[in-house]
């Protein structure tokens, strides 16, 4: 039992669940479209991991909230403004290079985040994180391998992945943001100190980019923000419209 504000805890866990859910939904859009059959398997595995993480976090968020909302109520019956996922994960798949860059950015971050959360004073959170850390570690490894191959592949693949890096880079600042909720929970030993992870995350990225012969992004770039407080890009509304169509159209039905 941890002594922290339950509202804070709800916000914190919901954010983790929303990011997992939105990324899982994006990855599942790839099914049937992968560049090779072997990669079909990998993309679906990552999608499954993310949906699994989302279910764990959202169920727990619902319990913490104590208003009877389960994973599906939270996933299917909230609109854009109540979603608190990172802007990064709602960005469209565009092409395989974008998808792998997005995956690497998130997974390499999540790996470090869950590494710390395994030791959270909140035992439920710690348990979910202990499972998720292994999954994200593999995702980072897999997408990192791809960045090297695409960056150091053909002229075309190099250009595509360089462009994806440039376009997605401004969404990485938000990963390391901490607001009052994070700070209070950090003090209570519940949350992770993401700010402190930024350097290590950046060093790991640089290593991959050097091997991939890709340019290192500049630190002077303006970073987007807002996903965590419900201010999203236009893309999220479309993603939710698709995902929520059945439960919204037939609110009385069980599936």
């Amino acid at each position, binding site marked *: 039992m941890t002594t922290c504000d339950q509202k804070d805890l709800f916000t914190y866990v919901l954010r983790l669940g929303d990011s997992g859910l939105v990324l899982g939904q994006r990855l599942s859009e790839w099914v049937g479209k992968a*560049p090779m059959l072997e990669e*079909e398997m990998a993309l679906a595995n990552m999608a499954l991991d993310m949906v699994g993480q989302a279910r764990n976090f*959202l169920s727990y968020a619902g319990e913490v909230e104590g208003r009877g909302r389960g994973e599906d109520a939270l996933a299917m019956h909230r609109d854009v403004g109540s979603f608190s996922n990172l802007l990064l994960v709602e960005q469209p798949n565009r092409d395989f290079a974008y998808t792998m860059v997005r995956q690497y950015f998130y997974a390499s971050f999540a790996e470090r985040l869950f590494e710390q959360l395994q030791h959270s004073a909140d035992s439920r959170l710690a348990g979910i994180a202990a499972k998720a850390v292994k999954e994200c570690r593999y995702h980072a490894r897999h997408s990192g391998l791809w960045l090297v191959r695409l960056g150091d592949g053909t002229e075309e693949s190099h250009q595509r992945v360089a462009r994806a890096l440039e376009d997605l880079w401004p969404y990485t600042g938000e990963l390391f943001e901490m607001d009052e909720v994070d700070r209070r929970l950090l003090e209570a030993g519940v949350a992770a100190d993401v700010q402190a992870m930024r350097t290590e995350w950046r060093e790991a990225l640089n290593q991959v980019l050097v091997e991939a012969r890709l340019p290192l992004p500049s630190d002077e770039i303006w970073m987007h923000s807002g996903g965590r407080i419900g201010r999203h890009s236009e893309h999220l509304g479309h993603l939710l419209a698709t995902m929520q169509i059945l439960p919204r159209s037939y609110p009385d*039905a069980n599936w």
Partner: protein
Amino acid sequence: MYTQGLDQADTAAPSPEEEVQLRDAFQARIDAEEKIEPRDWMPEDYRRTLVRQISQHAHSEIVGMLPEGNWLTRAPSLKRKAILLAKVQDEAGHGLYLYSAAETLGTSRQEMLDQLLSGKAKYSSIFNYPTLNWADIGAIGWLVDGAAIMNQIPLCRCSYGPYSRAMVRVCKEESFHQRQGYEIMTVMARGTDEQRQMAQDALNRWWWPSLMMFGPSDGDSAHTAQSMAWKIKRFTNDELRQKFVDVTVPQAHFLGLEIPDPDLALDEETGHWCFGEIDWQEFKQVLSGNGPCNAERLGARRSAHEEGSWVRQALLAHADKQRERSSAHEAA
């Protein structure tokens, strides 16, 4: 498994007398229920039949991802989303197991894919029908996977080793596919009026195409007799179809759904369900490319292949560069 990569013995073609002897010895092994392995001598038509059947089977798995994939982003709950993801992924995996088995016969995956993408190769006609409501996902699991299992279980004993081993794996993994489908149907058949309508509508649309999955009637099946003699096939199309109808009709009744066949009746003497005439004209049309979704399905496979081309090129280019670097490093 071993394919063209492996040092195939490059022997001259046997003389006609030798060929007869080899064929007799081959048939004797089959009759003794011995498995044939990739590098064993086999008649060319046995090899061709297997490549055709296994690659068609593989194509069916890969194209079969598409109708269900159509609902992945719209699955009505997170649990259903996870289950469907795992199922569709299994289909990709099964396609890969099967391509892998076919490659042991000396045909590369690329050749097989080219045949699929050019429209020359066939795949199961069932995947050329659209998935229009969520109950279709239930109906596919229940009926289509149900029919597939009937077809596939005997293939676990197929005379060709790599195919039979692949099928053992496929059958083991697919055991949850049919159940998840029936579970969806059960929930919907017991759900709201609208859900019940969806369930009945799905059954109406998927019933006859499912019966067609077993292929033409025995009288019209070109390959059955030879395939049975080679123990590639263990039961005829009509035998398997009857078995499917017999087990499925009571399952539909349990759900309170109606099978869309006015001629359906239980033969009290034999215990078999008699069913109406299948529309073979429709079957032929769908198989020859004129089904409701043939163009979409092939189009989707083609665009995935074309849009993935730069990725595969990058992989090869990177591997080449790495090899050059390591040989330059060794030279230095």
